[in-house]
């Protein structure tokens, strides 16, 4: 059994063990933490085994699955999937640590759901068989549905159903497209399906089916309407996982499947996707500006930030597309940390209305400091991780589509506005009201959970090169398959020439 299988199997075994332990909080915690940390260690071994110079899918692991239709349980990683797998295994134990004490009802089921979710997400990133990919992709729905529905806020029931049905519809369209590809090629293997020649008409239809499936997940405008509800109603841990990992399934899918499988359609339809991305960036930012609920504000900011990722992906050059992968990680870290902070604040105050807070910085300096740092990371302050993602995206997009890049820049400006304005209203100003007076600062456990996030936020911001080194070869491979890259990184000279 290879490391990828182990990374998927360990959390599943943990969930199974929890099923046998039942409602015994202490033992459940030990098992859950052990399983998720073990998966993290396994994924680190994966990093160690990984050959950075090889752009192809490597560390292949395959098992026979459904022989009659030739589907295999086939896993492998490239740079893109590797960083996302590590992000997943990194975030899950922290989420568990941060959130399980708030869960009074059926905590064992809660942790088991998270472990299953983690395994499914890793499965999505590692699958190299379209059927395996589909099964994992869709299966993430079930635990997330239960997480939102059982442990969520007041509007949890409607939000859970909306989340489920939206994503299901997209997924089923993709299933039809996958089966069409299967009928053409007789296989579900990613490598074999990439070789098949499709007419432009076929490509267009299949591309649209895949983009719809992934677009719901990302979510791109106008398929985003499930997201604010799901994010807001989910329990803290659910929001963190949703923003940190599940949204990335969509952008990962675009890069791994929609682009290289349908290159002609990609080139033809890329301007449309750039347009949709820009609308999403601006729309998400403007709506975020108007929110009175801080969690909803961050939810809409996700629409805006994920718009940047889509923009970079369809800018179709190595600079922008690699940066969009880095930005996936960044968004996972900074939005994940923000949702954790919101969760901690909500535990203390049981409200998320921005207007209810004010002048908190005097009472909770540590929380205020961390909040500011994470907000700055999210709005792409140079020196923090958001900048090293967003800036190359804009730079690269400028090469292919200047208008899109210029308009998207306004999104970055608006991000500074809504994040800092929210921070200012909540933490600065006069300290009024007994509630604000008596808000307590973060406890050591909570700080401990946030520290790994902050360390990575700063580390990636200061020295992003290792991350780019892992990601770039795989992105280049995809772009060469699309036929837009000669495999060379962007020359600075080209910028001056065009400008």
């Amino acid at each position: 059994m290879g490391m990828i299988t182990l990374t998927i199997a360990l959390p599943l075994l943990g969930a199974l063990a929890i099923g046998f332990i039942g409602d015994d909080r202490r033992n459940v915690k030990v098992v859950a933490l052990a399983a998720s940390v073990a998966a993290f260690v396994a994924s680190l071994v994966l990093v160690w085994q990984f050959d950075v110079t090889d752009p192809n899918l490597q560390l292949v692991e395959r098992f026979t699955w459904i022989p009659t239709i030739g589907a295999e349980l086939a896993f492998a990683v490239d740079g893109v999937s590797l960083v996302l797998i590590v992000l997943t295994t990194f975030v899950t134990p922290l989420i568990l640590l941060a959130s399980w004490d708030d869960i009074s009802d059926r905590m064992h089921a809660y942790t088991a759901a998270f472990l299953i979710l983690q395994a499914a997400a890793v499965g999505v990133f590692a699958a190299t068989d379209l059927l395996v990919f589909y099964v994992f992709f869709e299966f993430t729905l079930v635990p997330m549905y239960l997480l939102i529905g059982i442990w969520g806020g007041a509007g949890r029931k409607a939000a859970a159903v909306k989340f489920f049905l939206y994503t299901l519809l997209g997924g089923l369209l993709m299933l039809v497209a996958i089966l069409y590809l299967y009928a053409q090629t007789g296989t579900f293997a990613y490598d074999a399906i990439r070789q098949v020649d499709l007419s432009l008409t076929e490509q267009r239809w299949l591309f649209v089916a895949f983009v719809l499936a992934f677009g719901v997940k990302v979510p791109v405008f106008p398929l985003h309407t499930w997201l604010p509800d799901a994010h807001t109603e989910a329990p803290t841990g659910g929001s963190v996982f949703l923003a940190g990992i599940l949204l990335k399934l969509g952008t990962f899918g675009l890069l791994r499947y929609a682009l290289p499988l349908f290159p002609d359609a990609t080139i033809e339809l890329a301007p449309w996707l750039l347009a949709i991305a820009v609308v999403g960036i601006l729309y998400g930012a403007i709506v975020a500006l108007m929110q009175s609920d801080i969690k909803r504000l961050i939810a809409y900011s996700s629409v805006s930030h994920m718009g940047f990722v889509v923009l970079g992906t369809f800018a179709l050059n190595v600079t922008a597309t690699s940066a969009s992968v880095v930005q996936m990680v960044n968004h996972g870290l900074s939005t994940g940390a923000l949702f954790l902070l919101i969760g901690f604040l909500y535990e203390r105050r049981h409200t998320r209305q921005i207007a209810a807070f004010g002048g908190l910085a005097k009472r909770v300096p540590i929380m205020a400091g961390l909040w500011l740092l994470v907000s700055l990371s999210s709005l792409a302050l140079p020196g923090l991780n958001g900048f090293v993602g967003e800036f190359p995206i804009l730079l690269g997009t400028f090469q292919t589509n200047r208008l899109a890049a210029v308009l998207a820049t306004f999104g970055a400006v608006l991000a500074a506005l809504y994040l800092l304005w929210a921070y200012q209203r909540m933490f600065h100003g006069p300290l009024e009201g007994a509630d604000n007076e008596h808000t307590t600062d973060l406890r050591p456990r909570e700080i401990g959970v946030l520290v790994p996030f902050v360390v990575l936020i700063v580390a990636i911001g200061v020295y992003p090169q290792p991350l780019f080194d892992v990601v770039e070869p795989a992105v280049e491979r995809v772009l060469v398959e699309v036929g837009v890259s000669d495999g060379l990184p962007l020359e600075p000279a080209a910028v001056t020439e065009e400008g």
Partner: protein
Amino acid sequence: MAIDWLAIAPEVALTVTALLVLAADLALRGDAKQLVNPLAMIGTVVAIVFAVVLWAEAPRVAFEGQYVVDSFAVAFKLLFLGTLLAILAISARYFAEGRYFQGEYYFLLLTAFIGMLLMPSARDLLVLFIALETVSVPAFVMVGMRKRDLYSSEAALKFFLIGVLSAALMLFGMSMVYGFTGTTRLEGIAQALAGDAGSVPLLLGSVMLVIVGFGFKISAVPFHFWAPDTYAGSPLPVAAMLAVASKAAGFAGLLTIAFVAFEPVADVWAPVLGVLAILTMTLGNLVALQQRDLIRLLAYSSIAQAGYMLIPFGLARPGAEVVNQAAVRAVLFYLIAYAVMNVGAFAVAIGVNRRTGERSIRDYAGLGTRSPLLALAMTVFLLSLGGAPLTVGLWAKFAIIEAVAVEVTVFGLVMASFLVVNSVIAFFYYLRVIREIWFEPAAAEAPRLQPALSLSVVVVVLMVGTILLGVLPGLVADPTVVTTFATGG
């Protein structure tokens, strides 16, 4: 003429069991009467053993080609016998506590299943008709078994009238088919239809009449309206039998008659059945959205499921062997999956209903705390009925879309897109039940549920089956690949 006893061994075993059950019911007194249930189970297990033996021996031809035991037939027989075993297990307490007439019930149940075993083997119009009636007539009585309940009587009457009407239509169609082709043998009819007779409008009309007769059995729209009332009125194990086994028998008959006898005129009936598929799934799902009673919800959901299973019929084309085989395979696989998950759902409904008489969806509130086993199982079954990943239901839908993709046509894609949209609609009401089970608190006076051992075993086995086949669909997909119909020599 020597009779090939092995070929009909499962049927013989069930017949003997049925008679023994009847006799035992007369001979036994009081609580001893409950022994008829284990007796029936033993008989079923014997029949299953024979069917497994036949699997290795297939194909066998008996009664001068009117009766064929090929792998298609054996697959169906195993499906029926497995369902029978599950229904017997979930019936035990239900009937023992309900003070119903147990001996009669078990006798009738076994008789109906004898008819089902005959169905996929029949290669002659008359044998088909006899098989169909052997399924229907005991069912009429079983539906009305809760005689003191007005709804049960209404259910029985409705079911009876519509059943008789459909049988009459079918018999009328069969007689005309015989008149035109001069034979009741399915292969003979196929030959005649392939020749000149195939273009006679009246003959095509009678072909449609025969198909309509099966339409009632599988509760396809517009012949569906008996199903919800009948399911809701009949004893729950009988409803499970009607929703699963009887429907599968209808599909077995429809598959044989459509793909053996009427294959040369597939271009006439395929579009009709395709349109019926779209109507059936859409109407079934839309009406299911409105239901408050779980049994009625399952009834409409099973109408919708019949719609999905009709899609492959809409793909059939004369002479296109690859497409037709893929279609038969898809229906067969869907039926197996459907049997596992739907019997499971009914079993949980019986477990909840038994002590409390509850059947409204609201009564399932907080089932997660009242009986974690039943709650978890119901969740798995409903997710599977919807087609969620890692349940067998996904692969059932997969099989159908796969059949569509064998040779892509516009009509095929239209049907597939209806399947997609309907799957989403269906999830809406399946999730409503799941929501009650997990998200809502239990009512204060709601008792904890302690399902009977036999019912728990059935529920656990079916739940494990749903997930196991969901993870490894190859376990049944491989054997059922054989879908060519053996011809009666």
